């Protein structure tokens, strides 16, 4: 029987398969045990593995992350959940001051094999603080890895790699596409390497770099510009930090143009970094200004306004055309 899963199910399966083979893995956070998480990503884990390995905590993000630091030092591989990435700020101090630094601080005596999972991004008509894209906040911190899947298949393979990684990984899940589509996902474990982007389709005229839920919107835009004879190379970054620079450098050398599409605010975002790298490494190949299409530098609007915030396929298509016709 084919194993056709949406992203929630794929992540759940990755957790189950890894917990089966590695008894040091523990999963905890707010409502992850009995309820299986507000998005049901951790459904049934507590039933399968018991309250010692899968449990609910008091409501305190800093302690959820801070205790995971202690657990990782003491031989476990904790996977903790921030209920929403917008609730991760109370844990900011632990993440920046300790999660990211313990290996360096102790000159390798203590490493932290831990994963912090969080649903992120907008488009689900949620309350305030439930919609932001925070990857850039964390991607700048030395010592952290930041991973974002865009498909169920990638979500499973990337999460398995994150769990097995001996460094801390922030695994940001694009909740807008948690259940948007299903995909055949192999049963049994497989790894997708962290730090490697994926060329989703090759093309000749322009390179588009994106990640998370935006990848699907870019794909829709690509269909729209196809009729205008524009051939797009689409790269799914998959890992925000450490970033796979070669993927888009090589691509830009071929296409001469680049557009970065992300949901997070524009200024000082991940797109700015990508474009700086292109300027440093592929400057003489450029035929048009490297361009960003992103969320605005505003607070993420409440649901009645969010359709304006997230770049739509139509805007992406228009921007692709503008860059190609420059």
């Amino acid at each position, binding site marked *: 029987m084919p194993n056709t899963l949406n992203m929630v199910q794929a992540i759940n399966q990755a957790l189950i398969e890894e917990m089966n083979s590695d008894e040091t893995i523990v999963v905890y956070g707010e409502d992850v045990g009995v309820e299986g998480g507000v998005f049901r990503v951790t459904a049934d884990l507590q039933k399968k593995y018991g309250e010692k390995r899968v449990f609910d905590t008091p409501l305190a993000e800093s302690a959820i992350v801070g205790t995971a630091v202690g657990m990782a030092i*003491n*031989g476990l591989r904790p996977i903790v959940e921030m209920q929403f990435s917008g609730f991760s700020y109370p844990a900011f101090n632990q993440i920046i001051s300790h999660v990211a630094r313990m290996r360096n601080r*102790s*000159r*390798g*005596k203590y490493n932290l094999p831990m994963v912090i999972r969080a649903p992120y991004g907008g488009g689900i008509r949620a309350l305030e603080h439930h919609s932001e894209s925070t990857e850039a906040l964390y991607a700048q911190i030395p010592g952290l890895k930041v991973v974002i899947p865009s498909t169920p298949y990638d979500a499973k393979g990337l999460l398995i790699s994150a769990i097995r990684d001996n460094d801390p990984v922030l695994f940001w899940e694009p909740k807008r596409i948690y259940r948007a589509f299903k995909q055949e996902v192999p049963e049994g474990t497989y790894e997708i390497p962290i730090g490697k982007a994926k060329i989703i389709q090759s093309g000749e005229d322009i390179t588009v770099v994106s990640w998370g839920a935006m990848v699907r919107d870019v794909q829709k835009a690509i269909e729209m510009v196809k009729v205008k004879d524009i051939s797009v190379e689409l790269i799914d970054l998959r890992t925000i930090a450490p970033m796979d620079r070669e993927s888009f450098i090589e691509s830009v050398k071929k296409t001469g143009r680049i557009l970065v599409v992300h949901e997070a605010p524009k200024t000082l975002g991940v797109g700015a970094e990508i474009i700086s790298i292109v300027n440093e490494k592929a400057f003489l190949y450029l035929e048009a200004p490297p361009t960003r299409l992103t969320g605005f530098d505003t607070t993420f609007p409440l649901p009645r306004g969010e359709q304006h915030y997230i770049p739509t396929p139509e805007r992406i298509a228009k921007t692709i055309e503008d860059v190609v016709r420059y």
Partner: protein
Amino acid sequence: MIFDEYNPLDNKIYQVLDENGNLVNDKDQPNLSDDELLYLFKTMLYERTIDEKALSYQRQGRMLTYAPNIGQEAAQIGSAYAIDKDDWLVPAFRELGAWLIKGVPLKNIYLYWYGNEWGSHFPDDIKMLPVSVPIASQLQHATGIGMANNIKGEKNVVMTYVGDGGTSHGDFHEALNFAAVFNAPVIFIIQNNQYAISTPRKVQTKSKNLAVKAIAYGMPGILVDGNDLFAMYNASKAAVERARNGEGPTLIEAFTYRLGAHTTSDDPTKYREDKEVEEWKKKDPILRLELFLKNKGLIDDKWVENTKAELEKDVTATFEEIEGKSDTEIDDIFKFTYEKMTPQLEEQLSEYKAFLEGGNK
């Protein structure tokens, strides 16, 4: 059980040895052999010597910013001596005596304050975390280590430290709450040295003492004379037993005083009176143990003099081992950020090395 006898709501302070080195109550004299007593006293002198030498090196421009422990030796050594080698120690940054008891070599400690990360790379068999500068954040690591022990079914316990200022932090609340909820085997020691840099204890909380905070978390708390080695040892030992027996965490407030500055960058005369310091000098933890041991006939002036001279020689030699030859290797700055260097780090390192090799130092 002392936790029943000394309810922090009564604000009663637990003391065994008074300022004059006399036992307040014989029945509480800890079960320590003469050798142990001498070892503990010698470690207190060692700690004092390390501090005094570091302060003097700092004044001479040979040492960087340093946080001295003078006056807090009993709080640190009395508590840490209650745990075993297999137990964990999670420090803040002012627990030199506890680190020494845990077996951290002085060379590590001086190297850390000298400005090199290798100082925090303790020998493999030492279960202690590096210094944690962000106030109170380390308490959560202690709780996590304790929770992991419960998950793994291990019997060792965790001793962790925070200052009076740290009790105002959210992390203090979260760590104690988690520890109690998950019955983690953790002993929380508050070194209440009366000041958080310049801010006095009364500005931190309206509570009559800090131990009383334990009650709301559902764990025992006790207010202890932090300058009394015996009281600190007894209270800690009882807390360790509770933790080892699966009875969960305990909060101990060590009521003590920082006789020196917060760090060498601080000038305490700006925020406290000399008179206050003089009063506390009479309560010096080393002084009272010295009187007790002399009364007991275990040491005399000559012993103290010889021991101090010997320790000073040892401390000086250790500092000279690291002085002037502890600059950070460039590779080490990059090598420990991740398990494997990223292409970005490799590139930055090699570009920097190429610059240096070009002779443009």
